[in-house]
């Protein structure tokens, strides 16, 4: 597969070569345990400090508010379980949305099933927006946490976080956001958004896999999830993954410097794809709110055919994409996000997510626009529901 035909950047990204380079010395030469006493260990400690500053800058946070984890999933779990464990006596109600990533949804479900919590899943409208009114009405005296994602990974819809945070705060409730998909793509300013906690993940911003960040606003106290040697100010134990930390730091630095240019390059390509698909393929639904959502994400339902089949045909032609179909996700149901925005099951099965990134080009977009109609036509010609043959 040619990297330029990879259209699945919301799933994961290759590590930027500058990031790989920055990490290399920490495998062998500077391998020391940053907790150790000798001076060489100080170099590892220093590298962590720098990475913490880089990550903080990306979020407009203070370095002391940055906690390194093993990924977006751990950050989400730490925030949610950390609040749940710490404030259980205060209240047992958590509010989230129906379109969260499983890292949030399944964590909430576990708390509900096993730990005596009550969870409200806010519905979303047909573009994927949570309603501020509904949030307001859902907050109770027992509510201890609102966790609503910033950008949705499947449809790219961006929530009106600032307003949502204000509502939670007006009732004295903590707000966490899963910003795994927005961080590094668009400006994410924790001060401006007002969130108490925010998660992001390294492998979505051209950093190494297995690294994440939890931003925790100064003064906010939560229980740790991993106990041990007191690393990360006691919030997250475990010998620091120095190589990974250096990597996520460098990736954060690059993202901050280059995201505006990325948008300039990718938004027109994404719009071109949308226009091209709608022009060449009949009976297509556009999911989400592309204009106001993530500029790199396009989600469409190609009606009357099924997503995995589209992916397989495209794969044979060297294209990598994803789908909300049940088949491609190995679960029995199609994407809960697409169902939540009101899609019929069969249209969710026929969804295609195109997410662009650094190594896409106009060329590749043109190729995809040329290939996709042929693929769709062939699959539709096999489909009992396509009557326009």
């Amino acid at each position: 597969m040619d990297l330029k035909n990879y259209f699945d950047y919301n799933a994961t990204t290759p590590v930027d070569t500058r990031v790989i380079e920055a990490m290399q010395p920490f495998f062998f030469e500077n391998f020391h345990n940053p907790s150790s006493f000798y001076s060489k260990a100080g170099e590892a400690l220093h590298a962590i400090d720098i990475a913490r500053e880089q990550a903080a800058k990306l979020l407009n946070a203070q370095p002391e508010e940055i906690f390194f984890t093993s990924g977006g999933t751990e950050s989400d779990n730490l925030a949610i379980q950390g609040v749940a464990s710490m404030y259980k006596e205060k209240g047992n109600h958590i509010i989230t949305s129906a379109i969260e990533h499983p890292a949030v949804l399944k964590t909430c479900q576990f708390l509900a099933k096993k730990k005596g919590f009550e969870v409200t899943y806010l519905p979303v409208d047909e573009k994927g927006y949570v309603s501020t009114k509904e949030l307001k009405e859902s907050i109770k005296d027992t509510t201890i946490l609102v966790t609503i994602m910033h950008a949705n990974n499947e449809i790219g819809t961006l929530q009106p976080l600032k307003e949502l945070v204000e509502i939670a705060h007006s009732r004295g409730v903590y707000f966490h956001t899963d910003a795994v998909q927005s961080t590094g793509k668009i400006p994410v300013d924790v001060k401006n958004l007002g969130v108490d906690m925010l998660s992001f993940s390294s492998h979505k911003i051209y950093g190494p896999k297995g690294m994440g960040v939890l931003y925790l606003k100064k003064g906010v106290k939560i229980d740790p999830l991993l106990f041990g040697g007191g690393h990360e100010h006691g919030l997250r134990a475990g010998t620091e993954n120095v190589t990974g930390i250096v990597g996520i730091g460098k990736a954060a630095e690059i993202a901050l410097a280059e995201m505006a240019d990325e948008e300039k390059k990718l938004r027109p390509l994404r719009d071109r794809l949308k226009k091209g698909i709608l022009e060449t393929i009949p009976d297509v639904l556009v999911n989400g709110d592309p204009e106001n959502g993530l500029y790199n994400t396009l989600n469409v339902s190609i009606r009357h055919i099924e997503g995995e089949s589209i992916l397989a045909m495209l794969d044979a032609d060297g294209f990598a994409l994803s789908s909300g179909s049940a088949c491609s996700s190995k679960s029995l149901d199609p994407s809960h996000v697409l169902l939540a925005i009101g899609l019929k099951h069969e249209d969710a099965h026929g969804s295609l997510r195109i997410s662009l990134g650094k190594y896409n080009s106009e060329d590749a977009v043109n190729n995809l626009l040329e290939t996709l109609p042929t693929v769709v036509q062939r699959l539709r010609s096999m489909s009992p529901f396509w009557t326009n043959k």
Partner: protein
Amino acid sequence: MYSTKVIEHFKNSKNYGKIENADGIGKVGNKKCGDVMWIYIKIENGLIADAKFETFGCVAAIATSSMAIDMIKGKPIEEALAITNKAVAEALDGLPPEKMHCSILAEEGIKSAIEDYMSKKKNN
């Protein structure tokens, strides 16, 4: 994940399409679950003279449809009725466990098309 045989049948299947005035049509599966298979058959002298499929579904659904058609074309009705989902899956060099239901659909599709033919015949 899929055998080369599955991919071959998925990519290069020639057995799809409608049969106008089919003698039997089997419609199985469920839109909601993402797999719908329609099997058309044409019967001549107790043999399945022609057969085609229309399938909405994943790679495995399309490949099992295609294979099922290959397996029944030109065969006596009884032989077609005896085809099991396992036989279809084996003919494709196997399916991932979570895709075995597609082969069941194929078996049911054949049976349902033949039943349709039988009941039409009875009613004539």
